[in-house]
């Protein structure tokens, strides 16, 4: 799979995870029951956390841009 497609796939997954987490959070905020806080943190927080971590991981693991490589070569000279 090309690097661009792989990145887009990860973006989609992390976006979906964050969206699910945020929707769970919105439900918990309007649901006035004591368990709402636990659901917000354990389920909503987990989805958001995993989504954000996946996004950050996809950034650091992305293949370097060609212009970045050129910059490295220029610096070495």
């Amino acid at each position, binding site marked *: 799979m090309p690097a661009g497609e792989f990145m887009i796939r990860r973006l989609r997954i992390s976006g979906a995870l964050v969206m699910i*987490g945020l929707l769970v959070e*919105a439900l918990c905020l309007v649901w006035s029951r004591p368990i709402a*806080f636990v659901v917000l943190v354990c389920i909503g927080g987990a989805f958001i956390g995993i989504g954000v971590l996946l996004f950050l991981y996809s950034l650091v693991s992305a293949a370097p841009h060609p212009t970045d490589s050129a910059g490295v070569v220029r610096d070495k000279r």
Partner: protein
Amino acid sequence: MPTIAIVILVLFSAILAGVLVVRPSITVSRAGKILAFGVLFFLPLFSLLAGMDNEMERSKSTAFCLSCHIMDSYGKSLHIDDATYLAAAHFQNHRVPADEACYTCHTNYAMFGTFKAKLGGLRHLYVFYLKKMPLPEDIKLHEPFNNRECLHCHLGARSFEQGATHNADPATLPAIKANTLSCISSGCHDVVHNVGHWGNNVKFWSEGN
């Protein structure tokens, strides 16, 4: 921040995240990359923290504590028309904020007290959902009530410092302040909620009467 504002922020963030799911190609441009960082990093974390803070604040409210039906009797005890009932006297005379009555007395005024009070609340949830619930009259405090919670408000107050009973014996006041003589369980202010021991003649006060 009001709950409705946080809900709007959360839904707005969810919609933006949905846009990225449907159209991830917008991240090709520089503006799209900045948007993706905001939507997949900054906004979700901010929304989560704001939501947690809102829930923590809500968990301090009297209505929140009384939303479990096992606490009904304790809520009712706040309306007993008898000044010897400590909780009722504090609630009805606004010695504690009426909308945070439970939290004000049952929190812990030491370092990380609010955090410890919330952990105690989690234990309540655990018992409520996963264990056999005790009868309301069988509910006990996790640990003996510390005078520190009373002195948080009463220390320095004229009625406390110069009260006749507190000064009848010169050793009483220092003992109360050192928590060696309990306000609640030493027989002085021991009628608090007394759930299960009200008898038939108990009357209830209602606001407006």
